[in-house]
């Protein structure tokens, strides 16, 4: 009884007070309970892919949004992990349980490999230098079509799980867990250093913090999460192709994250879950599909340049100028310090 009372109290005091927390909880519950409402293969497939892309977008947000190391070549991690996973699975016959973590580890190594020469580069230079890596790798893949499958890619990979519903829960479950971990990382002490590096790297270095270590850590962490997304995607689609390294793949992650709200993690997730299904629904519009999509992105960003989640959060909530605790917009007084909200 006492446990239930405590749980109810927690829900009332910690979740229902803030509209954005209510939205987040509803979103998670909807994702988890959806298979009980519909068994439609198509809907489950779209949402599972969206979940995988959400991990990918959030990993970009971790590196570029939080640490400020803007990367235009994030598809590198995704593609390297995808190809590693595919080759291990097809040539050695290993199961996804082993291939996906190994793919992610290779992506971490690649993260180090890219991170070390890029440490000296700043801002746009870094972004455009990272753009080069996946394109160079794609050139190599086209030159050795026998091993990498060339333009057609590698197909015939085993499924993620036997049933579509299991695949759905695996993708969505991993997305929720990994994004929660990323969100916690950005909230931890490491996260504070990440923030500080973005704002003023020289000041951080002057405070006696080894920024090189933390920047490499960011590259590795981001590569790891993007790698898991790449491995999952390969086993889900059962193909690894050069399109996973394309410039468009890198920019998709950037578009989703900035559309949702940069440097938030949940913004990346929201961006994917809004834009990816939208693009699928727009298949009804045939040849106008990409045009409508581009116009939606254009107009939404024109109105909400800080991203859709940040925009909505600032409309629904106000931060108390004194105690820095967020409050629902319709309250009369702040919930912690009880000072008048409109006075």
């Amino acid at each position: 009884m006492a446990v239930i009372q405590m749980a109810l109290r927690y829900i009332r005091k910690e979740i229902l007070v803030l509209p954005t927390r209510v939205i987040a909880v509803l979103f998670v519950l909807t994702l988890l309970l959806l298979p009980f409402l519909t068994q439609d293969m198509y809907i489950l497939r779209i949402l599972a892919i969206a979940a995988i892309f959400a991990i990918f977008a959030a990993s970009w947000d971790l590196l570029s949004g939080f640490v400020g190391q803007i990367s235009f070549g994030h598809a590198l991690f995704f593609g390297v992990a995808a190809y590693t996973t595919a080759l291990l699975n097809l040539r050695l016959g290993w199961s996804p349980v082993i291939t996906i973590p190994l793919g992610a580890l290779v992506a971490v190594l690649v993260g180090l490999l890219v991170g070390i020469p890029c440490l000296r580069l700043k801002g746009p230079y870094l972004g455009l230098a990272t753009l080069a890596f996946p394109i160079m790798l794609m050139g190599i893949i086209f030159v050795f079509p026998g091993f990498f499958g060339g333009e057609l890619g590698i197909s015939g990979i085993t499924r993620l799980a036997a049933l579509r519903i299991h695949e759905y829960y695996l993708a969505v479950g991993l997305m929720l867990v990994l994004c929660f971990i990323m969100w916690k990382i950005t909230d931890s002490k490491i996260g504070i250093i990440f923030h500080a590096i973005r704002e003023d790297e020289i000041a951080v270095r002057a405070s006696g913090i080894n920024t090189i270590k933390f920047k490499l850590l960011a590259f590795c962490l981001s590569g790891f999460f993007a790698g898991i997304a790449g491995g999952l995607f390969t086993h889900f689609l059962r193909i690894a192709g050069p399109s996973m390294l394309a410039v468009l793949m890198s920019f998709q992650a950037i578009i989703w994250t900035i559309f949702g709200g940069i440097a938030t993690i949940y913004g990346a997730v929201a961006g994917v879950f809004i834009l990816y299904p939208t693009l699928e629904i727009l298949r009804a519009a045939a040849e106008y599909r990409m045009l409508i999509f581009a116009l939606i992105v254009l107009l939404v960003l024109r109105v909400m340049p800080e991203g859709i989640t940040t925009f909505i959060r600032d409309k629904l909530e106000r931060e108390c100028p004194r105690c820095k605790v967020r409050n629902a917009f319709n309250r009369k007084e702040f919930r912690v310090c009880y000072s008048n909200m409109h006075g």
Partner: protein
Amino acid sequence: MLSDILVYGLMNGAVYAMLAVGFSLIFGAARIINLAHTAFFMLAAYAVFYLGFSMALHPVIAIPLAILIVVLVGVFVYYVFMEPIREHETAVLIITVAVALVFQEVILIVFGGHYRGVSNIVSGYVSPMGIRISYQYLLTMGVVSFSLLAVWLVLMKTRLGVAIRSSAQDREIANLMGMNVARIAAATMAISVALAAIAGVMVAPLYTLEPHMWLDPLVLVLAIVILGGLGSIKGSFIGALILAFIEVIVVFTMPGGAFLKVAIALAIMLVILVVRPEGLYGVYLEGER
């Protein structure tokens, strides 16, 4: 083969220089990474295709009209979508991608995905020392050199040029000195788009027109401006020549060169960047907040 490398290298170098200098200008004056830059180039090529063939206008009318239309579109895009949200740099970046996608899709809907060609403005060729150079190449190189010279003169000798250069150095101080930085940025955008449009109308007869033709030059232009140093006109020019020659040499001498040309050009860019993080002639962005 050597003569082919020379001709194609100079030709591609000239076109890339036009694109890279424009890209560099707008980055310098407004700190906008305009990923739609080569989309304007494509738009100009299609505009000249439409005006010259579907409307059957004489090239002397069609070409300036195409450039004018593209410049007007560019200034419109700047004022409506970029200027109001200039402080949100990442949002501007994605807006430029969205603008490029809109251009691509509009062209796909209006003209279809077929490969299109525009016939040469001038026909015939000269062959000094056995090298065959068509008049179209000579005309293109002449126009490119003239335009780059004109831009350089504007930047160095006019009031507008001084304003552009000063707002590239420090936008806030330029603003405090009483310059209308938004209008300067718009003027820079017009010059930058005009350069892309001139390149577009000149190479329309030499390239195949298709709605995705903006992507490959975009990657190279980004590599060039990074190689030469962001915001440096001289760097962009030299970087364009270097990467264009590397590309042409790889295509002519290596097996599988067509797949590797971009990869090798980018690898050389990376090597130079590791040695000089600010590019060949770039200003080091250390002090910039």
